[in-house]
């Protein structure tokens, strides 16, 4: 059981969600986040005042899957979120010790 954490461009969220749904993935958690990597921020100018905005808006998408489903899901995210330009984001894969479905007390792969 592993967790995929993907930081993607906000306008790519729908495409990524659709691609994951086609793979039969039934749930995910999405958060609006801000940050910067190599893309850096941008400059805003208000008359004589210039401000550098360091943190850009991104989407953080979290999915927990059985080990066997991880490679396909990561490939789908990378394929659909890619524009080829700087700032496309990153995908992290992390180990997960356990999962529990609160309603049924199911644990492990059955709970994700």
């Amino acid at each position: 059981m592993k967790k995929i954490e993907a930081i993607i461009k906000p306008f790519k969220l729908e495409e990524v969600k659709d691609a994951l749904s086609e793979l039969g993935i039934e749930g995910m958690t999405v958060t609006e986040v801000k940050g910067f990597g190599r893309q850096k921020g941008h400059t805003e100018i208000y008359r004589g005042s210039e401000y550098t905005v360091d943190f850009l808006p991104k989407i953080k998408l979290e999915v927990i899957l059985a080990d066997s489903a991880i490679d396909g899901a990561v490939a789908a995210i990378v394929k659909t979120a890619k524009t080829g330009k700087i700032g496309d984001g990153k995908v992290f894969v992390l180990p997960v010790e356990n999962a529990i479905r609160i309603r049924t007390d199911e644990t492990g792969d059955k709970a994700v």
Partner: protein
Amino acid sequence: MMKKTTSVIRLLAAIASLAMLGAVTSTLHAEDAPAAAPAAAAATPAPTPIAFTNAPASVQTAYLLAAETNGDPTPTNIAPVAIAGHNAWMMVSAAFVLMMTLPGLALFYGGLVRSKNVLSIIAMCFGITTLVSVLWWAVGYSLVFGANFNSPFLGGTENFFFKGVTSDPNTSYAYWVSQNVFAIFQLTFAIITPALIFGATAERLKFTALFTFVIGWMFLVYFPLAHMVWGSTGLMNGVWNAGAKIPAIDFAGGTVVHMSSGWSALILCLILGKRVGHGKEPMPPHSLVLTFIGTALLWVGWYGFNAGSAVAADTVAANAFTTTTLATAVGAFTWPLLEFIFKGKPSVLGFCSGAVAGLVVITPACGFVNSTGAVIIGVLAGVIPYIACTIVKNIFKYDDALDTFGVHGVGGTVGALITGVLVDPAVNGNLGGAPAVANGLAKAIADHSLVVAQAKAAGITIALAVVSTTILAFAVKLVIGLRPSVEAEHQGLDITDHGEEGYTN
């Protein structure tokens, strides 16, 4: 400002000049109005007014033509009354100029501050509206447009508490408009002028200090200056005061409104000091959408301000209406064009700033220049205040928070001077009227030397604003203090001064 004086000196000068022309003229063209008035007085030294219904048909026709064209009815010997068309336009104009402050300026400035201070701007605009209205009723109108001091610097006491301010015309200022409408129209100017100042001091001036400052500022700066420029005995009233020592022209308030507030704003923001964190932390406008709406309301309201300053629905108003539109559009085109050239992107704040700058610079000129002059003024309005706000401010590092000095102080000064260069007597016959001939204005225009008188008027305005503001600011600082605590400034004036928030989640 449409007016005619009743002073003896002006009467004698006008009589002399007209006697030489052999003129007891029956001409009732609007633009000849000021000249015709004393002429009639010369022919019949103490005429008893006759009723309209008792007058011969030809006299009735002459009277009605004068009423329609904002002409002088004196030769008909029938007393002028408030006329529907002129009165209607002036009531609309007064409402439009009030709209410039509430909500125009409140939204324009309100959008430019951080969200924690938006209500402090609204409270400032609303508070000044209430305060100045009472001051104006009690003494202000009389000190500006009264005459019994017979002084070039201040009006008189005869209209204190609106005494005598009825629906009948005050013929010193307008033949065909009710004096109470004229007084309220002028009130709306007296409201917006001090309100402009506090863009420079935004986000860091205590409300109590602001209110106290405004009371003093009206007496030390606005009332004297408005009388000097527009009062029937005013020092710089070139168009209407035959005895004006400085025959300058200011149609709708380049000196009275924009220079006075803009230069006072610079001094007050210097004495006040910078906002906490200025230059170190970002202070971007919290809503350029509000700023845009405010700008649009200012532009529309400004038709009342500029065209309404003809104090009649006449040909001079029509010219002012046209020049105001052209200068504003060109200013609003030029400013973002410069941004596009030098910064890469034309901004909405650039469109807004250029529009307001265009409105400011055309204000003193709108009733005196032609459409070509208006376009030239629009270009200057887009360029010079742009330089003031983006380059000069960054060199000298003063915290003119919302660019009151850059737009109104600099723009108003440019307008006052350029009016002397671009003036076109063909668009406004009053520039060749008897008072203008008597005080030298007409000659200065013919000699292309009016800019000298304009520079003197600008210099007096700057001196009055700078000295008065310095004295007042230190007095208020001594008595009640100017700034909130650093903690209060961090929290925002909405909560600390007004106990409420503009936006809650």
